């Protein structure tokens, strides 16, 4: 067996896909339906386009400073001190995000599937798997992703095919009744839940940067396409009212599968898909935090920080996901702005400053 220390473009594609689908597959349809109603599917397409734009911005960052991680790029562009401060802000963002995702997972499992199991036990078990992954590293995670990906695809296809007979095409009407603004708003809000910037932390490990760039774009497109299909199916099968009012409309969708009164009660398909992509997302965030700590403080080791970080994740999850009303209010009113800063505004600023610096330095060098 080769001692692989690099990611292949295919592995990057799978990681990007899993990161995009991650938790969004379960919760995005409700938010989009609330914002855009029957046009939520158009909002999903807008979200896909915005994700591609964000991926292009991240690739511009990577092109300016090839071979560097996200945290190294910040320090190269802004200088040591400002770069480290920015990195600490990103680490805080990743910490809160991971805690909230863990809380979301625990709430879903304990409310929909195992109501008598303590939420802490569910969260602890998932965190344990993320800890094991963090100890083994991103290459092992990428290989696990390669193993899981065919199952994710097959389960998704089974889900779509099993749901197809129940489609009511009239549920998508009227189209664009309230104009373009709700669609753009829904799309923008949904795009702030795909944290593609995490992939910039690991892009320097990719073997074949040209192919890697294509893999990043393809991964975000594929993930966006899956989310669009789930949103469309939610509207066409559940209808707008049920989609809007469900906490987990994709789960409600999977519960409606009934083929010949034989193939039914298979919502486990969606749960399996979601758990696999969720595991990859949580693990990537965990590894990104470890990488960030190592860069910010110039550390030799990453492994000692795994358990303290894991404890912080679970405590944050207990203190962020207090109840669904609280989280829904924060997500709707506050999270989008906070995420937009880290996913769009700051990377754009970094690209502009970095481009100016490299241009200025190269013109200075050519002048001298």
């Amino acid at each position, binding site marked *: 067996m080769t001692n692989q220390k690099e990611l292949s473009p295919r592995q990057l594609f799978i990681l990007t896909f899993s990161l995009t689908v991650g938790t969004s597959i379960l919760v995005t349809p409700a938010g989009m339906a609330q914002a855009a109603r029957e046009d939520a599917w158009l909002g999903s397409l807008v979200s896909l386009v915005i994700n591609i734009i964000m991926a292009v911005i991240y690739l511009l960052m990577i092109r300016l400073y090839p071979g560097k991680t996200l945290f190294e790029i910040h320090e190269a562009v802004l200088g040591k001190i400002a770069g480290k401060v920015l990195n600490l802000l990103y680490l805080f963002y990743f910490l*809160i995000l991971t805690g909230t995702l863990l809380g979301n997972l625990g709430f879903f499992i304990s409310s929909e599937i195992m109501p008598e199991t303590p939420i802490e036990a569910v969260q602890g078990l998932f965190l344990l798997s993320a800890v094991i992954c963090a100890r083994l590293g991103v290459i092992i995670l990428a290989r696990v992703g390669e193993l899981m990906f065919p199952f994710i695809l097959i389960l998704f296809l089974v889900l779509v095919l099993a749901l197809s007979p129940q489609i009511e095409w009239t549920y998508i009407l009227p189209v664009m009744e309230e104009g373009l603004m709700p669609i753009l708003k829904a799309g923008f809000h949904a795009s702030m839940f795909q944290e593609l910037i995490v992939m910039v932390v690991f892009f320097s490990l990719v073997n074949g940067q040209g192919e890697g760039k294509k893999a990043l774009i393809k991964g975000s497109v594929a993930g966006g396409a899956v989310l669009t299909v789930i949103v469309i199916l939610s509207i066409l099968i559940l209808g707008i009212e049920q989609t809007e009012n469900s906490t987990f409309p994709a789960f409600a969708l999977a519960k409606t599968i009934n083929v010949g009164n034989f193939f039914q009660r298979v919502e486990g398909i969606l749960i399996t898909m979601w758990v696999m992509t969720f595991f990859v997302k949580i693990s990537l965030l965990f590894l990104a935090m470890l990488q960030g700590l190592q860069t910010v403080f110039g550390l*030799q*080791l990453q492994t*000692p920080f795994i*358990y303290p970080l894991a404890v912080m994740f679970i*405590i944050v999850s207990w*203190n962020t996901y207090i109840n669904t009303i609280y989280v829904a209010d924060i997500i709707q009113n*506050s999270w989008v*702005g*906070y995420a937009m800063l880290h996913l769009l505004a700051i990377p754009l600023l970094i690209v502009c400053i970095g481009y100016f610096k490299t241009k200025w330095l190269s013109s200075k060098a050519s002048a001298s």
Partner: protein
Amino acid sequence: MIWNVVLLVVLVICLIVEVRRIIQQKFKRDLIVFIAVWGLAVVCLTAHMLELPGFKPLDWIAAVTQPINKLMP
């Protein structure tokens, strides 16, 4: 309550094992940062156990990003 005790035990074991490992490898900076991060984890756990009302990270984020969110559609 039992879950807080489990986390406390994890932190104590982690402190003993990792400090020994870092000292053996003589990475001074790693030791300082580890103690800081471990200390932060202990503070978080203590704040949670005491059920401090202000320990809600999403509220901090909402407070800080309020000006930005007013500009959002």
